[in-house]
């Protein structure tokens, strides 16, 4: 495998990390909650997407329905579990989130079984050549999705009234409210967007691996945490860059570090190395 192959593979992985981690940092930025259960929502997206694809035969339809349904699930999740804890110290919500993530994994095990589920007819498995690099169609779709969803998020945040209201709320919720911004509405939109992006990542990981298991959120959970710390907690742009950087470093690491570090350990080695140099993360959030 040459350098361009490694780079492209790394960027694809980075796009998946970005889809998961951007949602996590959105929640942190608005509510100062480390939403560990975000990884459980990622797994839910994988299950629903796979089951709907197998049921309907249409991956595209399954994808759209899953993203919307899981987005609404995220809103309900916030209403049921986090909203009652908003006036409690942040560690209360953190502990609740860890508990919810464990509970979600066990619920998936009970409902869908402990063994893996697979696509009956895995879609997007043909290969295409992009800039001289051969890629599965599914990997190309991951990149397109990341660009469209994160680009769409940037447009929403920068060009629309609700997006500007959201950024104002992140900056100073009390002042934003004093100008008539409905904080509850902003928080619901936030959870919808974050959960929809996690669902999109979940389906695509399910597709690339052609399997869904109850514990598939475990590794993304800790990697996403590492990424949002590296990117500067709450900083979407920093998170995006950190996600892509981690994807590329892991990709090269599997070739050059494989005798000393497991691929999944590279995220934390990277995190430790960066935090020793820049404890505030790569990108400072004011």
């Amino acid at each position, binding site marked *: 495998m040459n350098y361009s192959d490694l780079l492209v593979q790394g960027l694809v992985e980075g796009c998946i990390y970005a889809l998961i981690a951007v949602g996590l940092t959105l929640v942190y930025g608005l509510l100062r909650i480390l939403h560990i259960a975000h990884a459980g929502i990622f797994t839910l997206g994988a299950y629903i997407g796979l089951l709907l694809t197998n049921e309907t035969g249409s991956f595209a339809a399954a994808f759209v329905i899953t993203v919307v349904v899981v987005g609404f699930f995220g809103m309900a999740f916030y209403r049921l579990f986090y909203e009652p804890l908003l006036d409690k110290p942040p560690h209360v919500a953190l502990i609740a989130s860890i508990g919810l993530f464990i509970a979600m994994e066990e619920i998936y095990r009970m409902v869908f079984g402990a063994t893996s589920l697979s696509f009956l007819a895995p879609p997007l498995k043909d290969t295409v050549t992009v800039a001289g690099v051969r890629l599965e169609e599914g990997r190309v779709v991951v990149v397109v999705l990341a660009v469209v969803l994160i680009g769409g998020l940037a447009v929403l945040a920068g060009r629309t*009234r609700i997006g*500007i*209201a959201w*950024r*104002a709320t992140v*900056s*100073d919720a*009390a*002042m*934003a*409210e*004093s*100008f*008539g*911004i*409905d904080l509850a509405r902003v928080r619901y939109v936030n959870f919808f967007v974050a959960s929809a992006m996690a669902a999109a990542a979940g389906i695509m990981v399910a597709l690339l691996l052609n399997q869904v298991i109850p514990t598939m959120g475990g590794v993304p959970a800790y990697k996403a945490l590492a990424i949002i710390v590296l990117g500067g907690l709450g900083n979407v742009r920093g998170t995006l860059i950190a996600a892509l950087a981690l994807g590329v470093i892991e990709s090269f690491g599997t070739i050059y570090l494989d005798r000393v570090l497991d691929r999944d350990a590279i995220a934390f080695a990277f995190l430790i190395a960066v935090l020793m140099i820049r404890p505030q993360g790569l990108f400072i959030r*004011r």
Partner: protein
Amino acid sequence: MLRLDRLTCGYGPFHAVTELSLEVPAGNVLALIGANGAGKSSTLMAIAGHVAVMGGRIIFNDTDITTEPVRTRVRLGITLAPEGRRLFPDLTVAENLTVGGYSQPRTAEARNIERVVTLFPRLGDRLGQLAGSMSGGEQQMLAIGRALMAEPRLLLIDEVSLGLMPAVIDVCYAALGQLRDEGLAILLVEQSTQRAFDIADSVCVLESGRAVWRGTSAAARKDPALVEAYLGLTG
């Protein structure tokens, strides 16, 4: 316009303001003065809905708004330019103004930005600049402009002159004078007593959360005790 009827407010068990009564008619400026910790800012924050009311009533245009949420108050026409300005530093000047006008229809935004820029032409050149990167004076202009985007009938403004150069203070007070002449009611908290007396129609002096003196600005200037306590030290 605004009437406080024996207002008591504070934080937890602590009463920052006790049984304060005052009135601000339309087109009038009332200055709240007093030492640090006298309860001036808490009064403004209680009227805006950010500090808990423990007793008394807040009447705005004959409507009791004591228990109304913050968002309702801004829709009724009360806006706050708080101490320290509390701009959204990562948003541009234009975006800060958009947030200020969030309670108004989208169609009113361009007209209100035009009004703010007419009042503070310097902001017109900086609409695309991040608010956090502006000078203190420009930030104060933006804080006032952002509050005006809500088309208020009552402006609550805290520490206009704090940390600003005299020329910038002049610009801000000229704008407030113009707004008062257009019929806006203004409740002003100001450490610079001379500035407060210059613009205010009436004055209320707070000590330890209680009103200890009320009257016109002209009467305040003639009161030897007030002159010695406030103008003598800060004027």
